[in-house]
């Protein structure tokens, strides 16, 4: 009788079992295999040898090519995040101050580009930035350029497109925290005599910081993990992105071991950043938890 009651109360917990099984089999176990592979050796022409070795990791850490690749990835992430912030903050601010009527429309306008396929977006920019593209044609028309400039497969192209792809996400992540900045605080500041610039500097910006940080963390982890964009339009720079390096090792050299190692390093890097900065945000008094903001 007691066992029945005990089970009845916890029945929802049993709901967790099938999903957990699915996730374990199709994600956790594959990840474990990945981890194992990262410690294996690759024999060219034969494939994997299941010998436990740290050689892959050593190779990654000692080869400047890979380390630079990591640096490029991390650095680009930072650059993209900063620029994206500059674009996204005003939009998020307007949304939170907008009346309910307009919010629906604004949201649709924000979400439509967001959920449009990334390939479509890349194609759009290809048209704009390509050799025969609109920008080049204009620049040549106005005699600012003699020959078409390769925007697309350069670093600039990568940055532009990455920013483009991530602005909507960043905006969505910022809306919540900005809404938490109560109007009454701003009003009190104004009543005390603060001018617009002061209000921004002393009230709005400081209070936005935790929100900005948590949004930035999420977008940052997305950017450093970027795959398609560097692959398609990155050119030589794209090849140095971690995800693309991983892909190359799978596609070209069939070196699953080393590819796995890169994957593991990427995961560790992402996780460390997330955890460190989450703690940082948490410790700020008006904080927002990163885990709550995994929104798309």
């Amino acid at each position, binding site marked *: 009788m007691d066992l029945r009651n005990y089970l009845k109360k916890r029945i929802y917990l049993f709901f967790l079992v099938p999903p957990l099984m699915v996730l374990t089999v199709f994600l956790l176990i594959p990840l474990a295999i990945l981890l194992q592979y990262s410690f294996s050796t690759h024999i060219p022409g034969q494939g994997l040898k299941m010998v436990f070795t740290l050689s892959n990791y050593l190779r990654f850490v000692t080869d400047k090519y890979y380390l630079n690749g990591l640096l490029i990835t991390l650095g680009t992430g930072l650059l993209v995040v900063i620029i994206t912030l500059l674009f996204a903050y005003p939009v998020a601010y307007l949304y939170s101050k907008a009346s309910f009527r307009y919010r629906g429309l604004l949201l649709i306008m924000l979400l439509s580009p967001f959920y449009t396929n990334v390939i479509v977006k890349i194609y759009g920019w290809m048209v704009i930035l390509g050799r025969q593209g609109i920008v080049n044609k204009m620049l040549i028309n106005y005699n600012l350029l003699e020959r078409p400039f390769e925007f697309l497969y350069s670093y600039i192209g990568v940055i532009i497109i990455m920013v483009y792809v991530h602005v909507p996400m960043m905006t969505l992540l910022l809306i919540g925290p900005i809404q938490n900045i109560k109007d009454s605080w701003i009003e009190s500041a104004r009543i005390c005599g603060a001018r617009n610039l002061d209000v921004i500097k002393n009230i709005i910006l400081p209070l936005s910081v935790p929100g900005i940080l948590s949004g930035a963390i999420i977008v940052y982890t997305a950017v450093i993990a970027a795959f398609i964009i560097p692959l*398609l339009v990155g050119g030589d720079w794209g090849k140095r992105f971690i995800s693309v390096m991983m892909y190359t090792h799978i596609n070209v050299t069939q070196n699953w071991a080393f590819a796995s190692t890169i994957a593991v390093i990427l995961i560790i890097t992402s996780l460390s950043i997330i955890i460190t900065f989450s703690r940082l945000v948490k410790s700020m008094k008006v904080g927002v938890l990163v885990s709550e903001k995994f929104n798309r």
Partner: protein
Amino acid sequence: MVSNVIVYAFLFIPLLIVVGISFSPTYQMLFPPQGLSLRWFKYILDQKEFVDSFYVSAVVAFFASLVALVIGVLVSLAIVRYHFRWKTTIENIFMMPIILPTVVTGVAMLQFFSIIGYSDFWMRLILGHIIVTIPYTIRSISASLYGFNRRLEEASLIMGANYVQTFKNILLPLIKPGMIAGALLAFIISFDNVTVSLFLMGAKTVTLPVRIMLYLEWHIDPSVAAISTILITLTMITIIIAERIVGLSNIMRIE
């Protein structure tokens, strides 16, 4: 504010250009187009590959979002209602597909399927998409569930309905918005997915985004614009429907 106009313009202009080009009468991708023609739309509808890929993407997205929905309901019920020791860990585990780089998910699953020798490409794709979309359905449904007043369940029970009846008559109807939004979200995410599809697909099960990507490697012509226009339109319609029916702001955890 002016900056807003700039940003929204920035977001929409590439899409508008693509739409414009899709009506181009020639091979040239000029904007504004030199005329209006539907030839490219006809062209892509004739291409078996595109049509097949559309079908593949649609089917995979459908089944993946369905399963993700069920899983979402199961997991949300457990997470929202109970506090147990491993709760946060389990929550994080289910959120992993978002946290992990998509490439890693793709590679890991590919290795796994290779090892166990599973070569049903349809299932591989669907399973991969399920994993990728689970966090979204969980997010959406648990958002709805958090707002659910548990006293309603108590009221139902006291009035004589048992737990199953209460679940059916009170709980389910009230988390419907979360379920619908979650399913729509999952569908879009799945349809849009490139990375995981790239790794898990087979020769006969190429999803649409990947197909476009492959096409782009060799041809640059307005046919891609035509497909894009269709996709953009479908996306916008879905978003508008979702917003009207469900009030997306709730599900996006914005309000």
